[in-house]
């Protein structure tokens, strides 16, 4: 088993997705929505992990990509949806599923395009600068959405049909995990880790670091866009304020808590950080204080994340968030 991690991982999540077809009838609505959030957060955290963890870049604008995907797919199903449904042959389950899938993919691709836009300046930037530029892009995306009247601007945008269900959420999560794990473990994917470990050395070895960085951004953004689409069709209402800097930080915290470049850890962290705030409703006031304190303490005492076990199969492909490069 330990030799085939990606297939076991994929199988495990596929089983969850299959179960998802059976479970919804018998479950409380509140828990159902928490399950949606878990799936969406897994997609967000795992995709950010490709950029921040494996490739060693630092993006603070993941919520921006999510917003692009969410708004695009919500616009497609809500405004263009009725016409498209007619084209697809009436409002049956099959055609509405097709519409939803199409809108999710469209959202993903639009977000990927935004990722390309962010990735291009990242060719020249690293570390702190990149963080600020991605933060800036996230804010710019938010301001642009705020001033777009077609999607409701500041007032928000209501989504006509809440198509999201457990099947879509978890099959998309499975797709995300599978794609990213397979990508990083492929021989092509070693390049991401090389860029993370030492950009100059990687370049000297003939790795096209620019291409890898842009690929990481585009792939990460695509899945964030998917997650945005699922989010839009689970909440049924979008506001630009829902995709602010704090949302990006929440995703970053998941990645760091799970361990940068440790997909399994990041998945666990995403689940934990979705359930915890629900369980600790009465501590809502202290939630962000706790998150920020956790960031600082983790960085000082355990930069490899909470869930860093020394599993054999993990050691091969995941970059430890080590402290090789001492800052001058």
């Amino acid at each position, binding site marked *: 088993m330990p030799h085939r991690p990606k297939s076991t991982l994929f199988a495990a999540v596929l089983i969850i997705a299959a179960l998802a077809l059976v479970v919804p009838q018998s479950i409380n609505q509140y828990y159902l929505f928490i399950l949606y959030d878990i799936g969406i957060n897994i997609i967000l955290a795992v995709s950010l992990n490709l950029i921040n963890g494996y490739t*060693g870049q*630092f993006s*603070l604008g993941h919520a921006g990509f999510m917003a692009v995907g969410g708004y695009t797919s919500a616009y497609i199903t809500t405004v263009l949806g009725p016409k498209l449904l007619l084209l697809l042959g009436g409002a049956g389950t099959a055609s509405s599923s097709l519409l939803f899938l199409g809108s999710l993919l469209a959202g993903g691709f639009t977000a990927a395009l935004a990722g390309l836009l962010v990735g291009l*300046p990242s060719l*020249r*930037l690293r*570390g*702190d*600068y990149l*963080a*600020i*530029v991605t*933060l*800036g*892009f996230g*804010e*710019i995306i938010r*301001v*642009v959405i*705020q*001033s777009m009247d077609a999607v409701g601007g500041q007032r928000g945008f209501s989504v006509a049909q809440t198509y999201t269900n457990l099947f879509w959420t978890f099959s998309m999560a499975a797709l995300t995990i599978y794609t990213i794990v397979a990508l990083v473990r492929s021989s092509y994917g070693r390049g991401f880790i090389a860029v993370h470990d030492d950009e*100059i*050395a990687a370049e000297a070895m003939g790795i096209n670091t620019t291409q890898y960085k842009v690929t990481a951004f585009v792939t990460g953004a695509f899945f964030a866009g998917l997650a945005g689409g699922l989010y839009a069709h689970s909440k049924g209402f979008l506001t630009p304020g829902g995709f602010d*800097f704090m949302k990006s*930080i929440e995703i*970053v915290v998941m990645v*760091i808590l799970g361990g940068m470049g440790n997909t399994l850890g990041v998945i666990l962290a995403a689940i934990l950080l979705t359930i915890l705030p629900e369980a600790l409703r009465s501590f809502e*006031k*202290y939630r*962000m*204080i706790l*998150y*920020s*304190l*956790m*960031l*600082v303490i983790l*960085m*000082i005492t355990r*930069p490899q994340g909470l869930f860093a076990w020394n599993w054999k199969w993990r050691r091969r492909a995941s970059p430890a*968030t*080590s*402290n*090789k*490069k*001492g*800052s*001058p």
Partner: protein
Amino acid sequence: MLEFLQQLINGLALGSIYALIALGYTMVYGVLRFINFAHSDVFMVGAFCGYYASKVGSRFLASGTVTAAIVVFLMSMVVCALLGILIERLAYRPLRERSKLTVLITAIGVSLLMEFTGQLVFGADPKSFRLLPSKNLQIFGGLVFNTNQVVVLGVTVLLLVVLQMIVLKTKMGTAMRAVSYNHRAAALMGINIDVVISFTFGLGSALAAAAGILYAISYPSIDPLMGVMPGLKAFVAAVLGGVGSIPGAAIGGVLIGIIETLVSGYVSSTYRDAIAFGVLILILLFKPTGLLGQPTVEKV
């Protein structure tokens, strides 16, 4: 034309606040080579210190007088200098030899911690305070100068001169320049790096505190998240001027302030927050070293 000049004056006042914050970013970057995200929140704490100091001070001194204002400024600057030193000591010093990413994440963590603790301690509701009575002065037949703007410009120029004296004329300033030039060589020359870094944090934080009070008297209210946007814009200003360069930070701050005022005056105020990021992306694409920065070579 008159309106343009008026916008320019407003931009200059706003820009000098950005300049004061940008100096802290640039000085810390100079000695430690990282962006102190928490700086924008020291600015916020500075404003709140001013708020509480003026409340307490009004019992002992007649409020609205110049003496009271100076006392408020000094108290807030001292408190924030200590806060800056404390942050460096607790959060950044243990990470001195770690990777840049680790330090960056810690800095973001410290920043968020201060914002949300601030919401808990100071309360999330906006507060306001007045330091000196404000009055509009008319000059050149139509241009309006608010007395607060005069205070802002005056204090900024004064602090810039003092800072320049410290950096160029004192022993500590020389040590700061040596450390930012070359860490190791400075240590070999017998400079106590830790003391210099603490001093830099203190100095930068004191300037941020002054900026916080200036911001509080020019704008209607202060709240625990007030630092986020000015902090980011000041950071952009530091990059525009060339990170690490003190005159650069001052020039960058003023430029960003003017650009922002002109854009919100002539284009749309919706974009006033986005414009700084647009500027940042353009500089980083076309002149990453900024206006006055030195190009650095990365060695293997």
